[in-house]
């Protein structure tokens, strides 16, 4: 950072940041603030005649509800397992695609497309593929003789959440592949050359050159995906709707259920507030642990 802040610079900085901040302030934070307030109100669409503040009643009934704790536990499984596999597979894919080969462009386009499918279509598509009686996956598994009777992927509590996670991994691998591939391309060749002179093996080069260089990308992509995956109910909502018996709910799908099925916006917002709280704490801790000072360094 070579330029000191001068007066003209200050105006310039201000002018460049204000438009973005104004958009966010008006169209995200204002409604979000109103939504957070709702979490403390008796706000049910069923009867809006009394929307007074209800002394944390929404949170109290939420914390008394055992399904909430199931959803809370599932949320962490959902986020960490999805994230782990999306990251590892995405990294692997990026490494595979790093060196040019014939047809790389087409192949890259093809493996990236799942990211372009909309969330609810993915959910519905996998719900259909995973169907326990007439689903195509069971059909294939039975044809190859891996199983003798169909598996209830979405109806067996042991399989429901893992199935949704599998669909989510399928969807999320391309994001990491794209971001990491881009970062890999930016590692200066002379660093590798220097390492080679020192007689480093491929594995050593990977750990000592590649990883440190793309570390900011890794830290930031995993952070932002953590936030996104936690707030991504589309797949679970369409695939299992939290079932059977609430065993595959995550917080954000529970939130949809409160809003869509019981019209209780107060309760729904309360779940939302819990999500925001968890994510804020997570982000701060994560940044502390990874020692990342430069948030946003991709």
């Amino acid at each position: 950072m070579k330029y000191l802040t001068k007066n003209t610079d200050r105006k310039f900085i201000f002018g460049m940041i204000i438009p973005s901040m104004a958009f966010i302030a008006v169209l995200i934070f204002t409604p979000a603030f109103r939504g957070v307030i709702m979490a403390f109100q008796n706000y049910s669409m069923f009867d809006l005649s009394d929307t007074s503040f209800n002394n944390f009643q929404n949170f109290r009934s939420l914390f008394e509800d055992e399904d909430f704790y199931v959803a809370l536990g599932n949320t962490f499984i959902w986020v960490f397992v999805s994230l782990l596999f999306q990251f590892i597979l995405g990294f692997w894919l990026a490494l595979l695609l790093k060196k040019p080969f014939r047809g790389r462009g087409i192949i890259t386009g093809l493996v990236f497309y799942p990211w372009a499918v909309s969330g609810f279509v993915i959910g519905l598509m996998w719900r259909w593929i995973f169907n326990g009686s007439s689903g195509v996956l069971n059909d294939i598994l039975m044809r190859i003789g891996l199983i003798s009777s169909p598996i209830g992927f979405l109806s067996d509590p042991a399989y429901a959440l893992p199935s949704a996670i599998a669909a989510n991994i399928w969807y999320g691998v391309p994001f990491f592949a794209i971001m990491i591939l881009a970062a890999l391309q930016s590692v200066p060749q002379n660093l590798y050359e220097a390492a080679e002179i020192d007689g480093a093996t491929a594995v050593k080069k990977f750990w000592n050159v590649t990883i440190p260089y793309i570390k900011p990308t890794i830290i930031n992509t995993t952070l932002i995906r953590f936030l996104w995956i936690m707030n991504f109910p589309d797949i679970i909502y369409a695939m299992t709707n939290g079932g059977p018996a609430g065993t595959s709910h995550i917080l954000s799908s529970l939130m949809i259920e409160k809003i869509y099925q019981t019209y209780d916006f107060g309760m729904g917002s309360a779940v939302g507030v819990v999500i925001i709280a968890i994510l804020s704490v997570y982000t701060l801790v994560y940044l502390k642990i990874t020692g990342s000072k430069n948030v946003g360094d991709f």
Partner: protein
Amino acid sequence: MKKLLIFVTCLLVTGMIFFGKTNLTMVETITSPSRTELLKTFISEFEALHPDIAVELISPPYESADQKLSLMLNTNQKVDVLEVRDHTIKQFVNNKKLLNLEEYLKSWNEWSDMVNLTHEAASYVDNTPYFIPYGFFVKALFYRKDMLDEMGIEVPKTMEELYLAAKKFTESKSNQYGFDWRGPGEIGFTDTWMMSYVPDIDPKYGYLTTDGKVYFESPEALAAFKDWIKLFKDACPPDSISWGWSEQVNGFVSGLTPFLWQDPDTVPICVERLGSEGKFAVAPLPIGPSGKTFQQYGFAGWGVASYSEHPKEAWELVKFLSTKDINIRFSKSNGTLPIGNSAWEDEFFNQGYYLGWKAMFDDPEHYVFIKIPFDKKEWGPYLTKHRDDLQKVILGRMTPEEALNRWAETWKNAF
């Protein structure tokens, strides 16, 4: 004469320019591409009859439509005519979004031609006619005629026969089952099943017995519930516990489960996929051990927004949509049961699939219509609770007694 004509025309034209056309906004919520198409036809016929009124139809996708309508109403967006459903009517009334149609009904002759159920449904909330139903969702037993004939199985007439027939079909090794879970509205099956075991259900309140107790507390309800679990374990695809309606209908159409417990609006879908060559038919619901079957009915119809700036024109549209001719055409295509006596005289509803429903309507001794508490605030949360509890019972995570207790608790304080 000619002068008069010119004068009238001039008057009309000035009038039109002066007042302009009245614009009505109508919102439908049980949407499907084919139904939207049909409604548009009706609307253009209406506009032809009333050249001074223009109607805009809003058709949000089904899954989010009620939510959207609710948001529109609560923020007083321009809505004149709206679709009112059994589970949304109380909410709309609570928030004072529906116009009381009493005055308008007085001058409408056709109102007296309606079947009793229509009058009852219209005044479901606060004994006030807040909307005009366009049709009813009444469960019946769909069965695959071809499959039953092949197996030589008679159409079940009692709940026990249904169990036996479904069990006969079931051969899990070859992925063949008899019956299935009724999707997100499983309550529409378990309630009917369980109530039909209890002799003294109060038709006025559905969930109560005549001595004012919640029916889940009666010993018959427990026996019924255990039989229901047996039915599920012995004759339903285990996977169906997580099915939605689309999977349920697919299961029926593909022959996976030859019996289907569904609403009449499923008929057009089955006809489309199975053809109308008699591969399937519809029978009255089987009768329970108490000798009766307690029929619940769902309904939907058209209402006028309380804050509409054109209530008269809006009423004209509602009235138009509820006339015999339109309602018959609507019912034939949409599948819902029509609202008028004279509609029921139409040949279409006296043959084929509709005989199943006709038979139930004509037999009040065995088929008793009960009121389901759609209008209680407990209803919405109860639906999710009920579904989750049922699933827990099937998965062995809750005993039937516990589940019944939980449901009884919910309704004890509600009435």
